[in-house]
């Protein structure tokens, strides 16, 4: 299930921690697995548990506690919009509402073509750039006016 490339990325993370503390790499291992497969199936988590010598339940605990892990298949582009107070004061809620109407989905829903999943986010630590959103956990987009939202969705639709 995990590719050799993912395993070597996990090994690099493991090298950061004491040899008897392999569990420390579990957050990174799950993130790497998610990069490869898009979401975390039970089988994938079991494989990580085995790889790190952890009980599977301890891996599930991590995957369910931290909110950037996908526990079910998501759209090709997961778009998370911050609506927390500082962002809300500068248009974060309007940006989210605009995306809802543009994509025809609510929060935690995926478009029928499987392209987009929309999520409501909490503070991303970029409040000065509001409205702010995150694409697939990695790409942060700042100052998202309607025009920039249109351009982003168009760009992602082509992928």
């Amino acid at each position, binding site marked *: 299930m995990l590719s050799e490339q993912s395993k070597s990325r996990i090994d690099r993370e493991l090298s950061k921690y004491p040899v008897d503390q392999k569990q420390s790499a579990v957050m990174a291992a799950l993130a790497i697995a998610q990069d490869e497969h898009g979401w975390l199936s039970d089988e994938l988590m079991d494989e990580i548990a085995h790889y790190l010598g952890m009980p599977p339940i301890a891996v599930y605990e991590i995957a369910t506690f931290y909110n950037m892990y996908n526990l079910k298949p998501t759209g090709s582009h997961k778009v998370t919009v911050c*609506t927390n107070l500082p962002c809300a004061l500068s*248009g974060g809620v309007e940006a989210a509402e605009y995306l809802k109407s543009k994509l025809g989905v609510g929060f935690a829903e995926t478009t029928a073509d499987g392209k987009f999943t929309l999520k409501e986010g909490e503070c991303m630590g970029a409040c000065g750039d509001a409205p702010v959103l995150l694409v697939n956990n990695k790409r942060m987009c700042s100052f998202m006016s309607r025009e920039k939202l249109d351009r982003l969705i168009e760009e992602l639709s082509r992928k």
Partner: protein
Amino acid sequence: MSLLDYGPDAIIMAGLDGDNWRLKDYEKRRGYEALRKIIGDKIPPENVTNEVKKSALRGRGGAGFPAGLKWSFMPRQYAGPKYLVCNSDEGEPGTFKDRDILRYNPHILIEGMIIAGYAMGIAVGYNYIHGEIWTEYERFEEALEEARAAGYLGRNILGSEFCFELHAHHGFGAYICGEETALLESIEGKKGQPRYKPPFPASYGLYGKPTTVNNTETLAAVPYILREGGEAFLNMGRPNNGGTKIFSVSGHVERPGNYEVRLGTPFAKLLELAGGMRGGKKLKGVIPGGSSMPVLSADVMMQTDLDYDSIAKAGSMLGSGAVIVMDEDTCMVKAAERLAYFYFEESCGQCTPCREGTGWLYRVIHRIEHGQGRPEDLDLLLNLADNIQGRTICALGDAAAMPVRAFVKTYRSEFEYHIEHKRCMVNPGGYSSRNPGLELAAAE
């Protein structure tokens, strides 16, 4: 490229243009000079800690605890491994300063951590970086590679006996991990649920070993203190409030962003740096230190200076230095509702008063906001706050209770109006009557 404008008195963020983050650029800004001096002159570790004590550098993450004193809690003679952990898990709503340090000046943090490691006799450090900022994490990793290649990190640093290795650990979306013991649990590969204190991390920290946890901005201030002297740093601020502080200004201002100013700078001056109120609107209230801190009304805030002691005197806390500015069109019930939802969402679930209480706080404010409030609800909110605050393992409970209490106290008439008239007295449309963010962004 033109320089980024953090204000005329910037120390940590001085001379940055957004691109000059690499090692060679940092060295041009006298980077790693403090470390070279310490190692070259064989300065005793105790003297390094004393210099930090003299500087009156206080923790920039929220608690404001004196950094030098914290360092001195680490057992010097401890035989086994000890750890230094940097808290870059910046998720307190309103706070976005550490992100700028990581992306624009990562080496200042690396140098600060090496010096801290030297002072406390620590050989391994971790920097825990907020899950949502991936590119900053990658950049920090790249900066670490540069520092290793240049001999600033690793074995026998700059030819001395001193060894220090530093790694980045990436979070994955949990506000609670900003709490230092939750953060340690998280590095250990567990759920981020806070530990009882005592024992404090200095005696039982990461992997059960003595550990010091400092905020990013705190550690980033260290190179200046060791290069220019603790007194020079102290004199940038006020007694007991040494140095400059990066304030993250968000909300209804013309130029939201980070501004590094001397501690003790009047709020009015910071507001001016941020371009004043957006659209010339009137100031209504300010949360001066991140969403966990009590909101202050405009008249109080305009009279307050920005340092730990002055803001405490005004009835709030400097916290992380996140200044959330709200104008006259802001519905304070709606603002309180959104923050209450955040703490409900982020409670780790370990302690009953917080797990259950944050849900109660949110639901009660939600019904007030939506015209279904009851006359007894305000007393209920205060009662709930009493039953959460001080009754949980960590400060998240307090962080949820304090803002609610302050919003109800400061803007009570607005809450009462909502309950009585079943609608908003300020702005039935939302957080602000126009959609300023989108207009602002469109003009950008």
